[in-house]
């Protein structure tokens, strides 16, 4: 990195050729020779990163008309910086700036901010749709995202802190928090871990997540990610810390508890009884989403005597033609379901319907007729699938889908005791998990009855006082 020390050359051509070399003689590098104060000067920019009308109107026209005024008078609306290191200049070319070299001042050159903006409009994120409430979402531009958050929270306490991460292609990362609400210990941890990231480039927020997690070996996500400004704003006001990456519409929220993954902004726009009911259903889905197949296996392979007698015959009747043990049967169907899900995700939406037909009609019906699996198994897997999609957070939903498999194996070896074993290990793990020093399972463990009001159910908003109880102290 010694070349970054290269300062400006005394001659205009020297500078131009240095930059040319530096950018490997790329064709979209444009050099326009102009005259300023009677002397020849050069405007250098990367055609692909700048806004041509902006340059035409705000750079070239003033230069032609204004003549000899000072540069800061000429470029009133553009941001103007002076720089003397060529490599810095080259770098800034890449991010949509143009460089202005004048002959009379060969100690420094000017950097003009003229980036091209091709922005997606602020639309509602597709996988986080809500019924009532704000329908905007984050986009790839960090400034716009910050703007959206600032609009939500017009408070002087909202603090943004930029970091640059990545050694070869650094990207801007913003850390946001409410200065008066967030726990300083958490902020310190977040900043410390961000600084500790050593990587050449950050491709997505997933990278940041994996670098910063307390327990990267855990299956559970320890960051909540969302593309909704209102969701993010609510968490900020709750004293959480938000991390955003330039060029990625995802906001990472820490510290989170398990129950955060089961909440949606809709909960707070619904009436509280309905919201409580929905939340309760969602938490129920947590149980069914990964225990149902295991439960079924345990019953069918071990404890058939817990079935009431009529059900006993029904299930037995559906099983008679199935040649495989329940574990294989369940695995088979679960894997088919995962296949269909993954295929549906990748296919364009028009073809996507075919998957529905293939999955639902062809496989669902034919597989039973062919005698691979039983009808009851189909019911179980379908219920599991539906429950797993009830979880608002995609990451948590995937985690829970994966959890089914070990639990199914446990159930097929030890029956209910196996399930108890699996659940014990799972919950011990959850108890161990901490997200930036905050217990993952709070308010359940450590038990805080007050926290239940907004974790399991949603009590009327006026009863949910303060910020989740445990956030401030300890």
């Amino acid at each position: 990195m010694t070349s970054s020390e290269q300062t400006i050359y005394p001659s205009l051509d020297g500078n131009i050729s240095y930059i040319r070399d530096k950018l490997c003689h790329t064709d979209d590098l444009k050099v326009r020779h102009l005259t300023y104060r009677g002397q020849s000067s050069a405007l250098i920019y990367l055609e692909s990163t700048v806004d041509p009308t902006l340059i035409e109107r705000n750079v070239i026209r003033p230069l032609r008309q204004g003549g000899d005024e000072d540069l800061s008078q000429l470029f009133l609306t553009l941001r103007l910086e002076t720089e003397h290191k060529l490599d810095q200049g080259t770098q800034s070319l890449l991010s949509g700036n143009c460089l202005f070299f004048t002959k009379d001042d060969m100690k420094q050159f000017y950097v003009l901010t003229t980036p091209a903006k091709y922005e997606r409009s602020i639309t509602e994120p597709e996988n986080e749709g809500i019924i009532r409430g704000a329908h905007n979402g984050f986009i790839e531009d960090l400034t716009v995202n910050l703007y959206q958050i600032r609009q939500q929270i017009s408070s002087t306490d909202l603090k943004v802190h930029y970091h640059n991460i990545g050694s070869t292609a650094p990207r801007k990362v913003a850390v946001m928090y409410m200065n008066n609400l967030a726990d300083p210990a958490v902020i310190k941890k977040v900043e410390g871990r961000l600084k500790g990231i050593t990587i050449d480039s950050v491709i997505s927020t997933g990278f940041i997540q994996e670098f910063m997690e307390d327990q990267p070996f855990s299956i559970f996500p320890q960051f909540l990610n969302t593309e909704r400004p209102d969701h993010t704003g609510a968490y900020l006001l709750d004293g959480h810390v938000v991390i955003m990456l330039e060029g990625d519409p995802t906001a990472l929220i820490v510290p989170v508890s398990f129950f955060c993954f089961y909440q949606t902004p809709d909960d707070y726009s619904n009436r509280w009884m309905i919201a409580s009911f929905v939340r309760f259903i969602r938490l129920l889905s947590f149980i069914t989403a990964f225990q149902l197949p295991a439960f079924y296996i345990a019953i069918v392979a071990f404890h058939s005597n817990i079935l009431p007698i009529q059900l006993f015959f029904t299930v037995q009747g559906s099983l008679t033609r199935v040649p495989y043990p329940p574990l294989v049967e369940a695995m088979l169907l679960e894997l088919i379901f995962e296949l269909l899900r993954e295929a549906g995700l990748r296919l364009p939406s028009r073809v996507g319907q075919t998957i529905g037909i293939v999955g639902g009609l062809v496989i669902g019906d034919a597989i039973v007729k062919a005698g691979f699996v039983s009808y009851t198994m189909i019911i179980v897997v379908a219920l599991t699938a539906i429950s797993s999609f009830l979880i608002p957070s995609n990451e948590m939903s995937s985690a829970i889908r994966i959890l089914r498999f070990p639990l199914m194996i446990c159930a097929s070896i030890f029956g209910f005791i196996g399930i108890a074993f699996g659940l014990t290990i799972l919950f011990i793990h959850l108890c161990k998990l901490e997200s930036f020093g905050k217990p993952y399972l709070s308010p359940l463990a450590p038990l805080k009855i007050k926290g239940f009001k907004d974790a399991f159910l949603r009590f009327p908003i006026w009863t949910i006082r303060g910020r989740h109880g445990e956030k401030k102290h300890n």
Partner: protein
Amino acid sequence: MKRGRGALCCTMLGLSTALLTGCWDREYLKDLNLAYSVGFDLTKDHKIKETVELIIPPKTEQSATTNEIHSAVGLSTRGASNILRARVRGNMRVIKNSVQLIGRSLAEEGLKAPMDVNFRDPRNPSSDVRLVVTENDASEIIGMKKIGELQIGEFLTQKIRSLEKMSLFYPPETVNTVFRALTDPGQDFVLPYIGVQGSEIVAKGVALFHDQSFSGTLGKDQSIMLVLLKGKSGGNARFTKTVNLDTSKPIRGSISYNVGNKKRKHEFHVSVTRNGDVHVTLSLKLQAVIEEFTGPQLLDDKAVKRVNRELSSIMTQEAREVVRELQQANCDIFGVGRQLMAYHPKLWKRIDWNKEYRNVQFHTQVQVSIIDTGVIQ
């Protein structure tokens, strides 16, 4: 890295256990052949004959199950089951049955021995299994295989349950309650008593037990009366009696009434006199709903009063008869002994309850009052 490898090892270990060995207590539902109803009889050479109804799962999804009847003779219940297992196809299990029949001959011999396996083996069900005593051999009833469209086990279950609703037998006597009564010196039990008439299975009343063996029976009306005397009701308790309404004009009318679905007042009290005599007060106040009345007059206030009086005296007579028969059979169904144990332990230790029960003086009184005559008077 290290932890990842550890996790991998654990997974491999788990998988290999799952796939290679793990089938210790596994018992696939589809391999089970359920013995849905079981009957026990005593053979002439004092062995146990076990008759089972096996349910065969259907071949296709929608079709119904079928059943097979098998029987075997063995030294004990489990012994007979083991012999049966060698005979029937597949894996015969008694993990779930809803009714067990006991032939009268075996019931006379005592229930402790044949029932032992039910109490002992944790896999055998106990909460919802009805025990029934049959007039002749239990195998005869199970051997009927199908009654109408229903399989025999299903038929018996439904029959017993509907009779329980009619207060013929109530509260339900299951393996559990029988276990409790069998081991209790101060409490006896009764079991439903059924028999075959032609091609039909009919309820005959209840079988009375003393300690562990069959000691008498009660008829159908008496069974309902017994349930009422216990202070219970399965929902309906219907009687049809003929009452003499007018002595001057002896027009006899029959009256059907239900005393099971209204509130009852039941008093059961055990007292001991100074010289050690045991007195039991058993009084019952019933509220009757008239369901049918074929007499000539209207059931106006006067008539109702009269009917009340008549019915009360009829019912009291019947109740006394029931108690008399219970005492004759030495069946302490009310748990008088238990009351003595709990509240008069000294007396209990002194007496021989097996003999003393017959000397207990019951003061039985039944009062019936009509509170509803239907939509017409």
